[in-house]
């Protein structure tokens, strides 16, 4: 057990912090900052950030140099991530590419594919989106109905995907399609790489309950792609996808944790600005106990993150325990939203710029409602823990 960072790592932290301070977009993270209303302007801003990260040497920190990475370890990765979180740095637009597609490709892709796709991904030249879920295949991902048929030397894809984040900004989509209807449902699936500018692709935004438009529906109508745009082999898509979901559930807890801590601090500031029956809310033990409990959970999330990174460093992969982290943080964040609204009390309905907290606590409340659903609902995570970690019968 050694939770300290060595001198070199501390230097890296300092270096990261300095770079971030000088490079974060002007006003970013301050309450005054406003995202451009126009989606393509927003996309441009985020993509610029990805490019800047690459130029600064902070893209693919733990990836091999041959694929455009920095050749460092996961420790440096989380250090940068943590510092970025502290300063509320932008997330960039290629999150799914970096966090889900790239590790999947490194595990299952051919050398040629890695060389072809990873460098432009890191540079911000090619943004990726993920086409997994479908209207009738949510929790039951293996039920996907989108089909891919080999016609001559090209795959022709037909079907519909949902919850495709950033599809409207993406250059590529890594997606699952059924390639064999005869096999059991887990067996006949393949992972494909599809250029988003292909003929036959239609993207329709899905507005979330907080008004955000990050998600999309994507329709594939006779979309034709080259035969070689397959990862991990034909009919092996389920195994590939399980790897991807593991990354989705387990990693990046530290950056997220720091952002939660920032939100918590905002909540505390707001509670200090409000009174209840003549008593300051931050001094009222009902709220104090709940705030402290929330703080405890945010800290424990950090411990879980450090444990996961250690496991990744040691064993090179994550097990089904990754579900614990997803369940833990999404539940905690839901509680944060609830507590935020309790703190606001009668101010709760007001979300305008002139309102207490400018609506940030309501945003947490609304946003967190989706977090216990996407990337595997809490119910699915509990099933996984019970069956695959505790070995309870199916």
């Amino acid at each position: 057990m050694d939770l300290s960072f060595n001198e070199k790592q501390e230097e890296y932290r300092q270096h990261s912090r300095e770079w971030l301070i000088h490079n974060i977009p002007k006003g970013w993270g301050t309450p005054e900052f406003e995202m451009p209303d126009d989606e393509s302007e927003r996309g441009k801003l985020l993509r610029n950030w990805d490019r800047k990260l690459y130029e600064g040497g902070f893209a693919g920190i733990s990836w091999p140099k041959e694929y455009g990475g920095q050749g460092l370890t996961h420790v440096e990765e989380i250090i940068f991530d943590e510092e970025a979180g502290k300063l509320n740095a932008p997330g960039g637009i290629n999150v799914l590419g970096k966090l889900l597609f790239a590790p999947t490709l490194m595990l299952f892709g051919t050398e040629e594919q890695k060389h072809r796709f990873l460098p432009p991904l890191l540079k911000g030249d090619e943004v990726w989106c993920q086409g997994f879920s479908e209207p009738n295949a949510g929790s039951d991902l293996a039920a996907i109905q989108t089909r891919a048929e080999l016609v001559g030397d090209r795959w022709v894809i037909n079907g519909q995907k949902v919850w495709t984040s950033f599809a409207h900004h993406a250059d590529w989509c890594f997606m699952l399609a059924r390639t064999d209807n005869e096999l059991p449902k887990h067996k006949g699936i393949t992972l494909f790489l599809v250029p988003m500018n292909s003929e036959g692709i239609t993207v329709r935004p899905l507005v979330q309950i907080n008004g955000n438009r990050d998600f999309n529906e994507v329709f594939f109508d006779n979309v034709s792609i080259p035969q070689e745009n397959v990862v991990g082999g034909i009919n092996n898509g389920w195994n590939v996808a399980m790897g991807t979901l593991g990354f989705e559930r387990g990693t990046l807890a530290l950056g997220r944790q720091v952002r939660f801590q920032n939100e918590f601090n905002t909540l505390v500031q707001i509670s200090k600005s409000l009174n209840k029956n003549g008593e300051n809310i931050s001094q009222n033990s009902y709220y104090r106990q709940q705030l402290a409990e929330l703080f405890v959970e945010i800290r424990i999330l950090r411990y879980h993150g450090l444990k996961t990174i250690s496991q990744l460093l040691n064993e090179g992969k994550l097990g089904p325990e990754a579900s614990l982290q997803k369940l833990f943080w999404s539940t905690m964040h839901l509680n944060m939203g609830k507590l935020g609204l309790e703190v606001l009390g009668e101010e709760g309905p007001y979300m305008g710029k002139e309102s207490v907290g400018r609506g940030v606590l309501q945003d947490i409340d609304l946003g967190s409602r989706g977090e216990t659903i996407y990337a595997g609902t809490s119910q699915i995570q509990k099933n996984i823990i019970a069956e695959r970690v505790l070995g309870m019968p199916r």
Partner: protein
Amino acid sequence: MFFGLNDEEKMLRRSVGDMFKDKNTIEHVRSFMEDKTMSKEMQKLLGDQGLLGIIDLDGSDENGKGIVNAILVAQEAGRHLLTYPLLETMVGLSALKTCSNHTSVVNEIENGKKVITIAWVNVDAKSRKTENGYCLDGTLREVPFAKDADVILANVRVLGKGRTPSEEETLVVIDPKSTNLVIRDANSIDLTYPLFDISLLNYHLDESAIVKGIGMGRGKQLMDQMRKLGALLLSAELVGCAERALYDTVEYTKQRAQFGKLIGSFQAMKHMAADMYLKVESGKAAVEYAAWALDSDNEEAELAISIAKSYTSNAGIQVCGDAIQMHGGIGFTWENEMHLFFKRARRSAAVLGDSYSHLEKVAKVAIDQLEEQQQVANREVKFVEV
């Protein structure tokens, strides 16, 4: 002793429910959210059906004060996300009716010709005596549908008309069409029931605007009564809102399949639904009991209202939140309606006393006044050998 609805009550609930089901569909709600204009048709309907003036605080006929009927109507309003200030109308009319000076506006409102709303919160609105009346300045807050209202009831201070600021409070009728006030959308989370702020500058208040006399605590007394009544009706709306979210969700789980099974057959879904049902039924019982208590001048009426509002506030949020969860992915999209219920529950839970405030009122009775109560209850007990 009978805790349940009689046939007329059931019929009222059904007919109101049917009307809203027809005339206040989710499509109506969404179009209101877009163009933010209240339905004239709904206004006329409510007037024609005689639902607006349903509460009569002086009443003592078989319907008592009409509170039980009012909560049934409010439940249906909540169930259908009614985009009309029905609560403010029922409460406002009950207050206006206590003063004979306002008979003509009462009639117009009751017949659906004019729309009334209430400024629930007075930030700092004060009026000073002028030559021909009073001059009112300051800010009012939490005024539902103010943009569409013809009449706003507000509680303002009339300086000098009481020994304390709260004694100076006076209930007045304000004309929202005046050029001496500005109405601003307050960006409420709940787009089905918009809230507005109002700034008053040199607003001329005529003697005729005053309800039940100036100052001397009358305004405060009326407003307190209105807030209690409002809290109860809002609890009823919360119950209706949560009940609809529950049953729509249950219905969804009977349609949606995953892993080759209807998701309603998964025990996790069943247990969430059962917990939601428990909360809905418990909230409903609390609201009905409080309505009866208020109708029959029971000494525990105020306590019963705080029980109802605190319980339904938490229950409404929990149930509507779980409804989103049980819908899975589509539950957190704008096009699904679950978020409308959730946001309505969020607003309803927050205003007219949040759960904390009402529980604190309960605590005063349950904790602070416990000893007095026990002294009353503890008569001498004589023991004998068995």
